[in-house]
């Protein structure tokens, strides 16, 4: 029975390991080419108007076929330079052990009812400093912002 158990475990590890890599042969939401600013790449994605209130609570996905959940949008703030940042809880498991980080709105895209982070990989997001509210002001829910689009990843 033991060798069969080992094979089964290996198969399951292979199966779920695939999810972690999740190579997308036809990706959507790819990062801007080197040298291009976030604002420029957002402008290329036909940004569409959306009320800030509609963004709150939205899930944030990784732009890969397995659509890994990176976190959820907890707030939208403006920093002292006027840049709009999306505050999301990132990391952890099912809400435990996550921390708040602030991602520039221009780094994100809309994907139907969800959002994706296009400009940063999860590895890069992990190195973001924890979000501190000082120096930022929340953007009112009625404010309309413009967010770029992306096609689904496969």
């Amino acid at each position: 029975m033991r060798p069969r158990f080992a094979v089964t475990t290996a198969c399951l590890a292979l199966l779920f390991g695939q999810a972690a890599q999740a190579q997308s042969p036809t990706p959507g939401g790819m990062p801007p080419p080197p040298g291009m600013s976030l604002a420029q790449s957002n402008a290329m994605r036909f940004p569409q108007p959306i009320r800030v209130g509609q963004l709150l609570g939205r899930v944030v996905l990784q732009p890969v076929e397995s659509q890994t959940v990176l976190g959820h949008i907890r707030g939208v703030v403006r920093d002292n330079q006027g840049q709009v940042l999306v505050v999301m809880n990132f990391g952890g498991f099912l809400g435990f052990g996550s921390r708040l980080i602030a991602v520039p709105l221009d780094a994100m895209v809309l994907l139907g009812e969800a959002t994706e982070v296009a400009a940063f990989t999860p590895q890069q997001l992990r190195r973001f400093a924890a979000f501190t509210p000082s120096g930022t002001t929340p953007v009112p829910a009625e404010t309309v912002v413009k967010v770029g689009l992306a096609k689904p990843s496969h």
Partner: protein
Amino acid sequence: MRSRVRPNDFSSAGAFELHRPLIKSLERRGLLRAGLSLGALTLLTGCDVKRPEAVEAALLAISRMNDGVQALLFDPNHLAPTYPEAMILRPPKFNAYYDVMDVKPVDGSTWRLELAGLIAEKRPWTLPDLQAMPQRSMVIRHVCVEGWDYIGGWTGVPLRSFLERVGADLSAKYVAFKTADDYPSSIDMATALHPQTLLALQYGGDTLADPFGYPVRLRMATKLGYKNPKWVTAIEVTNTYPGGYWEKLGFPWFGGI
């Protein structure tokens, strides 16, 4: 022969680089026979692995049979469920066979809808011409073959009214569409005449935005998303099977929901 609808300029080098994996993948998929993965193949006894073309041909034959079954299941009097306007997703979900940066916006003031085939009045239409026709609105569920869906609201000219106005042969089999993004599509006449098939000009009460097909897209409530072309530039009524972009790659033609 130069296509009337081919874009005049190619993508910028940067965008091309970005999509190299996509292009490679499309090339691979176009050439790959039967799309079988070896792992699963070994489970099939009696399957001739050396001639996957035969398997592919058999699957496509069954797919064509399924088109016939779908045509039988299509009830021209059955309306798709509709929903309250508050449920409309704004903006809707974008999809194409390329990412959104490669959308080529159409100039509505110079846009013309060309007509061809079994149509009596083949004079091209302008956008104001279409806007002058009686419009219908519907809030329906968009279902993508990929598996996702959303509630969307479209306003436009019922395709039936349009076809009647231009003297189309309503006993013909197919209505075919050409688009500004090289995405041909075609549908059966029964679906074309369905009350929830529109030449859509608006989404959610506003003019269609560029990424969503401005100035005109086809919007049906009874077919999967990929059957609804955006940036329509020509309509043809014909009895010759016109096919479509995804059908060439193996997807079913009827695509009904």
